[in-house]
């Protein structure tokens, strides 16, 4: 599964994109975030205030209780500020 990070989430994790294999126990976005926070201090810091972070599964906005299912691409980013 491909993970993408944007804006300050990318800066804090130090990663723009990566391919990962998730543990079978990870079924929702919230569980994915909890797992990411165990991967090192950069990730723990980036997702420290997880409620601020927005998530998209396969390029569509989702809430953190969304099931990951057969997702190919999951992206994490701050609230958007375009326009």
């Amino acid at each position, binding site marked *: 599964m491909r993970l*993408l990070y*944007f*804006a*300050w989430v990318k800066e804090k994790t130090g990663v723009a994109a990566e391919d990962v294999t998730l543990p079978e126990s990870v079924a929702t976005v919230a569980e994915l975030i909890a797992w990411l926070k165990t991967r090192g201090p950069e990730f723990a810091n980036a997702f420290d205030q997880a409620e601020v972070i927005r998530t*998209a599964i396969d*390029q*569509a*906005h989702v809430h953190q209780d969304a099931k990951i299912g057969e997702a190919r691409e999951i*992206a994490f*980013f*701050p*609230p*958007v*500020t*375009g*326009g």
Partner: protein
Amino acid sequence: MIRVQQENFDIGAEIAALTDGRTDIGAIVSFTGTVRDQHGAVTEMTLEHYPGMTEAELQRIEAQANSRWPLQASLIVHRTGALKPGDNIVLVLTASEHREAAFDAAQFFMDYLKTSAPFWKRETGPDGSKWVEAKAGDETAAGRWSTGKNAAE
């Protein structure tokens, strides 16, 4: 139509491309967002985005507006990359028979652009560089379109 691009856009040329030769349009609204220097606090703005999802979101916003208002034509152009104060950021055009639909749809476009299109602004000034924070008011503005308000009101 939607476009994501680094280059500037020409408002007059975009309006002409959408409306020239047509006699069924009565009202054309354009919104242009530009970089403010905020009294010297901003010397550069960089726009990051999520290629692929950006286009998908802009198309979704445009389709929603077209299903909600009788638009004869519409356009969203959003720039990315490094911009300077005074530069154009975003252009929204709506054309309809009557002004209410054109105004409402243009505001709908902007409210949803501000809350759902995956762009992030980073401002650089004399004191360094920081990511722009989202405004609570933008969520409120987008929320008003969920209450059944429409062009007939």
